[in-house]
């Protein structure tokens, strides 16, 4: 198959400005594509460089607010793009609304737009009445209108942009995020890690990791604990992550076997992930749910809310247990797997197999290239 010349437009990467999950998704996709194709990554940063065969071209935008800032970024990106457009790029891949002006200027060229989330979703599934919300939503609508092909990370995101922005279903293809399972599977002594937190090595540990915000549902787990310890007196809970709910939750769980760690470095996250017995993902809204792939990579049993990307990717009782986002249901799910300890490892192992089968970047990049070819034809 012939090699393509591909341009990425994305406001963050792992090596320059890193904001959220978009940085890792876009960078890993670019690196995987770069094994067979020529990839140029237009992003923010202070100097150009080549890392793992991806050519990073940086710009330093300015602006008083996020909308102006992103417009300035898009303009600089297009300028930089023109410097490298000989020979011409075969396909242009835009990520999220930040680069909509670049998409507008280059809309005649074969292009693909990825939606990683929507402004509505980031706002917890609510509409906002402030000007940035309206401005960003309009940009998302316009990007969806002019893009030749749209990629969404899950079917629920595809539906969301369908009804939010009237984007026809046939224009949107669902391509999930990938994972590098080796980054999350570590060979550690679970007993030693538990011991550090004052937990007996044989005590089952339930682990929550995510922002302490309403969307991620840590309160559902806290409220589920009393019912769980009635059946299993020895279960322990660890919550990692920052957010405005942390204080309130810490107070609320005074007499419960729960610890709130706040922000933890990646290495401690991987240690806890591998030392825990159950990973709980009680989100109320989740376009994709990267933590699911991370837990599966570590062969962990997940108890997750039946919403969004989590609902789509988990096969109930085969590679995880799905629950409603309510404390009663979360308690039921955790008790269910604790009752059948042998399930704990088999659910996790099945999850890991699913990662190897469906969520490796290699196979995802193949689908992305197929989408590229559909707009080039």
């Amino acid at each position: 198959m012939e090699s393509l010349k591909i341009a990425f437009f994305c406001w963050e990467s792992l090596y320059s400005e890193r904001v959220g999950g978009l940085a890792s998704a876009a960078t890993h996709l670019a690196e995987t594509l770069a094994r067979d194709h020529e990839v140029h990554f237009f992003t923010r940063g202070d100097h150009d460089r080549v890392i793992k065969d991806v050519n990073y071209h940086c710009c330093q935008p300015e602006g008083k607010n996020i909308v102006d800032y992103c417009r300035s970024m898009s303009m600089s990106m297009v300028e930089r793009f023109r410097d490298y457009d000989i020979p011409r790029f075969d396909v242009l891949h835009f990520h999220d609304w930040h680069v909509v002006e670049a998409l507008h200027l280059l809309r005649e060229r074969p292009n693909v737009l990825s939606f990683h989330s929507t402004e509505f979703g980031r706002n917890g599934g609510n509409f906002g009445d402030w000007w940035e919300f309206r401005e960003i939503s309009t940009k998302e609508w316009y990007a969806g209108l002019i893009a030749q092909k749209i990629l969404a990370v899950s079917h629920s995101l595809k539906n969301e942009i369908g009804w939010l922005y009237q984007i026809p279903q046939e224009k949107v293809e669902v391509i999930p995020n990938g994972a590098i399972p080796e980054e999350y599977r570590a060979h550690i002594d679970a007993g030693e890690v538990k011991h550090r937190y004052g937990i007996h090595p044989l005590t089952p540990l339930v682990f929550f990791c995510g922002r302490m915000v309403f969307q991620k549902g840590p309160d559902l787990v806290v409220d589920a604990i009393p019912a769980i310890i009635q059946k299993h007196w020895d279960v322990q809970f660890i919550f990692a992550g920052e957010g405005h709910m942390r204080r309130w939750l810490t107070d609320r769980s005074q007499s419960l076997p729960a610890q709130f760690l706040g922000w933890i470095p990646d290495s401690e996250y991987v240690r806890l992930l591998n030392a825990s017995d159950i990973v709980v993902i009680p989100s109320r809204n989740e376009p994709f749910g990267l933590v699911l792939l991370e837990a599966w990579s570590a062969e962990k049993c997940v108890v997750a809310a039946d919403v969004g990307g989590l609902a789509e990717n988990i096969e109930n009782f085969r590679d995880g247990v799905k629950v409603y986002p309510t404390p009663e249901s979360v308690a039921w799910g955790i008790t269910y797997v604790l009752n059948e300890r042998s399930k704990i490892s088999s659910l996790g192992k099945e999850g890991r197999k699913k990662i190897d089968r469906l969520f490796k970047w290699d196979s995802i990049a193949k689908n992305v290239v197929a989408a590229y070819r559909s707009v080039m034809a």
Partner: protein
Amino acid sequence: MSRVCFGFEVHQPFRLDHQFDPEAGRRNKNLREVYFTAKNRDLLERVVQKCYVPATEIVLENLDQGFCCSFSLSGTLIEQLEAWGKDALDLFQQVASHHNTELLAQTYYHSLASLFTEKGEFEEQIRQHMHLMQDTFGVTPRVFENTEFIFNTTVASVAKKLGFAGVYAEGVERVLGWRSPNYLYSCQGIKVLMRNYRLSDDIAFRFSNRQWEHYPLTADTFASWLAATPGDCIHLFMDYETFGEHHWHESGIMEFLRWLPHEIALKDTQCILPSQALEQDPRDELNIAETISWADQEKDASAWLGNCQQLAAFREVERAGRLVRDREVWRYLQASDHFHYMASKSGSCEEVHSYFRQEGPFKSFADYMRVLSDFEERSASLARMRGAVLGLRCLPPEKAFHFFSAYGYTGYSAYSLDDFAMQLEVVPKDSLQFHVERGDFVRWVADVIGDHHLAESLKKYHLPHELFDAVDKRRKYLWNRLK
């Protein structure tokens, strides 16, 4: 009329010496003596006396009365029999020359070479085994049985390429779907014989289990099960050591073996050989992209490559192919058994693993790496590019780089320069920062690996991808020097 086809895998590895000490063994130039335990002889003599001789005598009697079966004998077993078990070898030779038996091909070293990225080594070991069968028994096998039934489309393609008429695979539900294992299938254009693992395991695992509802199993009962099983042919395949070693004489297994062929004949069931089973047309084409095997509940490669340490050891032994001279010792080290001893599983699979190994999984891993590392170091002293071999050699756990953070061990370790480059990409970034600030990478590369050139250049870098680039460039350079 039902048809049944018996097959026995017969194998003994060269087990490592758990007391191996690189310093003490330094002067001894005979690597076989240094690395492999003298107990191999005792173990072989025990299994010859408990299983190979008595079981084969029974089989020989039965063969004369119309019983048929196939044998898959590993090359390392034949070597050990030639040295320490001539009686058993004679019996196997009588069996091999009997018209009611068939010898199967496998890898000479009963190795995991089929899972290597490069398939050349795998093919080479099958050819070696074919020569051995020709030299020792005057037979050219037509059917292939890979180590522990490891199978996937690649194994099928290699077997086809080497001209086999058929290949054995485990009758795993997840690849068979609604199909029965008791029919002939094909994969990549080669015919596949599917093992009926339920019936095979009734003999191999459950026979002496007192909790089993069918205990004690009699030849009569088992033969009636076979007769009642639908299908073209039931393939029963098991370790030959089942008879007398896994199940002791006292369990009645020998009497079971003695009377089973008789009972089978009484139940109007016919015994056939694998080649006869292959005469039919395949019922369906199977696509088996994932690796399957007969091991454990998972029936995949996880018995040998299920944990990080097994994977690390496996990567290192594959790489060693380009560093070492003595191909034979290298191939002994590829035997699946070494990796089986390193498994860390729980439940009933754990019982099987601990039955086979002498020591705990970590000890097995550490011993293995100590031997492999010493083997590569010794090869370096004979190599033209001594520095390159030393720079690329693998290291035992006490010399490996273990990544830490302020909280403790992260769960990642690097056992060679190649491994180090790989880990730099996946280890959490804060752990890399932790070591960069302490200067640990520079010290490890200089003092343990002994690569002062790389150590110097690592001093200049702080960011993860810069460290990776420097290490990656260096390891590629060293590999190039070896070409």
